[in-house]
């Protein structure tokens, strides 16, 4: 039961990425647990239990999503800025070295840097990301999942997972930089 209670909120969030409403996501989660119970005898322990459960969940959620004919193109979910550089081109000189360094917040007091305001800035930055970038950074950096777990849960290639995470972190870091620059002035 502890497993069920512990995983259900994350399962609901992952399911919601594929279907159009919370209600359908709840049905998907229930259906996934039924699938888990049915399949448990055949579970070979090759993947971690959590990875295996999420694979079942994602299969069901994807099936539902397709039946809902809610086929959102990957580019819409992933964001159209995956190729964008981490820093503005003007930050570098012609040879690719720094010409303008980002704001250096290392000298600022810790309580200022990691205070509530900065955390709120990070929360807003994550909430403003394209959906798939937000999902990846939430699972990886907020919930602490491994890259394999995230790849499996969201059915991403290794490369896509890395690119989405890098873009997401780059934007969150930039938001933190902007915030700390403004409060240090």
């Amino acid at each position: 039961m502890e497993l069920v209670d512990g995983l259900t909120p994350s399962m609901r969030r992952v399911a919601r990425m594929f279907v159009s409403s919370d209600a359908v996501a709840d049905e998907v989660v229930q259906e996934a647990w039924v699938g888990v119970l049915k399949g448990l005898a055949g579970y070979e322990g090759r993947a971690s239990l959590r990875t295996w459960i999420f694979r079942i969940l994602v299969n069901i959620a994807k099936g539902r999503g397709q039946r809902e004919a809610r086929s959102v193109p990957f580019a819409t979910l992933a964001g159209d800025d995956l190729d964008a550089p981490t820093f503005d081109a003007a930050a570098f000189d012609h040879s690719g070295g720094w010409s303008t360094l980002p704001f250096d917040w290392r000298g600022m007091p810790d309580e200022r840097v990691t205070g509530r305001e900065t955390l709120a800035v990070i929360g807003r930055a994550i909430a403003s990301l394209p959906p798939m970038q937000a999902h990846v950074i939430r699972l990886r950096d907020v919930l602490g999942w491994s890259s394999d777990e995230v790849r499996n849960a969201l059915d991403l290639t290794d490369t896509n997972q890395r690119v989405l995470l890098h873009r997401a972190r780059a934007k969150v870091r930039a938001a933190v930089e902007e915030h700390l620059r403004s409060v240090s002035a």
Partner: protein
Amino acid sequence: MSRDLVCREVVELINGYLDGSLPADVRAAVEAHLAGCDGCTMVLEEFRQTIAMTGMLTEEQVASAQRDILLAAFRGWATA
């Protein structure tokens, strides 16, 4: 990796470096660059700290930020 990396390239590799997902030769090239570059070392530290702070958030805080943004968008929409 046969050539040296420049800062503009290193910043794109920083998250792969932090996650330990770079091939050994690329990783070595990033490390060689970082050893001689204060700017990139600073950016690395900023990413590391950003990730640590992101880990201090709860899912509820992210979800409520998302709600706030939606509400703000709706308010803007209603008054437009």
